C-alpha cells in the first residue's frame, strides 16, 4: 500500500481528536485493540491500522474502510488500550463524521438498520420490533431476510404486533430535532491524563 503524506491539507487527525476527545497520536501501534477485537477477521483494516491511517491524515482511506461499521461497539479495545484511548469512540466518531458529511457508508446495511431502528423510535417513542424488521427488509431489498425465524417466533409469542407509544410527543420531537451529531467536549490538551 502506498501512502502519500500530505500534512498540509486538512489535518484529519486533528478533526478526529477534537470530535472524539482522544488524541490519536497517543497510539504507539501495540496492536492490543486488534488482538482482542471480536470482528477483526471480518474487517478490511484492523483497528490498529485504522488508527495509524488517522495519524497519517489518510481521510479518504479511513472513510472507505468497513471497520467502523462492522465494529460491534463491544468496548474490548477501549478497556485494554495501554494509552487509554477509547478506540470504540474513535470508530463511532468516524461513522458519525461520515453521516454528518453525507459520505456514502461502505457498509450500507448497518446504516440502514440504524435508520429504521431510529425511525421507529422517532415515530412512537418506543421500538416496534416487528415493524422495524419489515421496514429493514423493504429498504434493504431483502424481503425474506430472517423470515425463517418468524413462524417459531410467532408460536412462542415473541412477535408482538401491538405498537406501544409514549405520551410526551413534544419531548420526543425535541430530542430528535435538537440533538446534534457530536456532544460538546473539552479540548483534549486540557484534559487530565
Amino acid at each position, binding site marked *: 500500500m502506498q501512502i502519500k503524506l500530505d500534512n498540509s491539507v486538512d489535518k484529519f487527525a486533528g478533526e478526529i481528536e477534537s470530535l472524539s476527545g482522544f488524541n490519536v497520536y497517543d497510539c504507539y501501534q501495540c496492536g492490543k485493540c486488534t488482538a482482542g477485537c*471480536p*470482528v477483526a477477521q*471480518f474487517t478490511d483494516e484492523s483497528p490498529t491500522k485504522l488508527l495509524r491511517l488517522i495519524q497519517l491524515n489518510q481521510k479518504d482511506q479511513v472513510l472507505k474502510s468497513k471497520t467502523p461499521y*462492522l465494529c*460491534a*461497539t*463491544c*468496548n*474490548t479495545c*477501549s*478497556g485494554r488500550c495501554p494509552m487509554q484511548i477509547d478506540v470504540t469512540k474513535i470508530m*463511532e466518531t468516524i*461513522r*458519525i463524521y461520515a*453521516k454528518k458529511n453525507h459520505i456514502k457508508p461502505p*457498509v450500507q*446495511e*448497518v446504516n*440502514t*438498520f*440504524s*435508520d429504521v*431502528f*431510529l425511525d421507529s*423510535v422517532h415515530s412512537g*417513542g*418506543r*421500538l*416496534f*420490533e*416487528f415493524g422495524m424488521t419489515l421496514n*429493514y427488509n423493504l429498504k*434493504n431489498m431483502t424481503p425474506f*431476510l*430472517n423470515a*425463517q*425465524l418468524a413462524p*417459531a*417466533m410467532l408460536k*412462542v*409469542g*415473541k*412477535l*408482538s404486533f401491538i405498537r*406501544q407509544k*409514549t405520551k*410526551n410527543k413534544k*419531548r*420526543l420531537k*425535541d*430530542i430528535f430535532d*435538537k*440533538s*446534534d*451529531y*457530536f*456532544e*460538546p*467536549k*473539552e479540548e483534549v490538551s486540557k484534559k487530565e491524563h
Partner: protein
Amino acid sequence: MTYGYYPGCSLHATAKEFNISMRAVCKAFNIELTEVEDWNCCGATPGHTTKEELGLALPYSNLINASKQGLDNIVAPCAACYNRLKSADYSVNNSPLVKERMSQIIGEEKQRDVKIFNVLEFFRDVYGLDKLKSEVKKPLSNLNAACYYGCLLVRPSKVLQFDDEEDPQSMDQIMQTLGAKTVDWSSKTECCGGSHAIPETEIVLELARRIFSSAVKAGADCIVVACPLCHSNLDMRQKQINARYGTNFDLPVFYITELIGLALNISPKDLGMNAHFVDTKIVIEKIG
C-alpha cells in the same frame, strides 16, 4: 421494598420471558416494581452510533421522568438499556457542557439522583446473597452453568463501576448461591455481535459459534445471560448456527431471573420459559 423499573422495548417482545421471570421473582421476594412513567426507548446502539447527543438524550429523558416520580433507584434488566442509562448519567455528571446541552434539548433537568442497577447488581448487592440463599427452595445442584456476561454489563468499567471487565464474578456468585456449579471458561465477556444480528448476520453466527464451542469445551450444560441481545443471538439463532457450521449445539440459554425462579420453585410456565427456541427440558429435569 419499592424499586423503579425500566423494562425497555425488548422486554415486551423478543425478551418477554425476561420481563415475566423478573416480575415473578420480585413478587416472590415482596419487591414492588414501579414502572418509570412514560418511558421511551434508550436508543440502544443505533442511537449512540448515529448522533452522540441522541444516544444521551433518549436515555436521559427516562432519568428525568424517574426523578420526577420520586424514584431513588431503577432496575433495568436489559443490559443495553442499563448501559445507555448509565452512560447518559455519567456524561451529564462529568461534563458541565453535556449537562447544559441536555437541558437545552429536553427543556428539563433531573431533580434528584437516580441510581441505576442491572439485574446482577440488583440481586447480589441490593437484595443480597444471604437473603437470596435463605429463599432457595430447590437448589440447582447438578447444574453446570456457563455464566455469560457479554459486553454491555461490564464495559466500559469506568462508566458502569460494576464488575471486573475481564473476569466478572457477580453472575457466578448468584448461580453458586442458587446451588449450581459454574464453569471456568474463556468466553465470559466475549461479544455476541449484539445488534449486528440483522444487518451482519454472518458475524453474529460466527461469534455465537465461538461462545458455544467454548461453553461445551468447559463442560457446561446451559448458558446463563442477563441481556436480551445475548439471549436472542444464542437461543433464537442456535439452529441457524448448527446449519451454517454443521455443528450440533444443543445448549439451553436462560435468563438469570428464570433460574432464580426455578430455585424458588416457581413453575417454568410462570417464568415464561415456554418462549424458548432451544428446549429447556433436559436442564429442568436435571434440576429435578
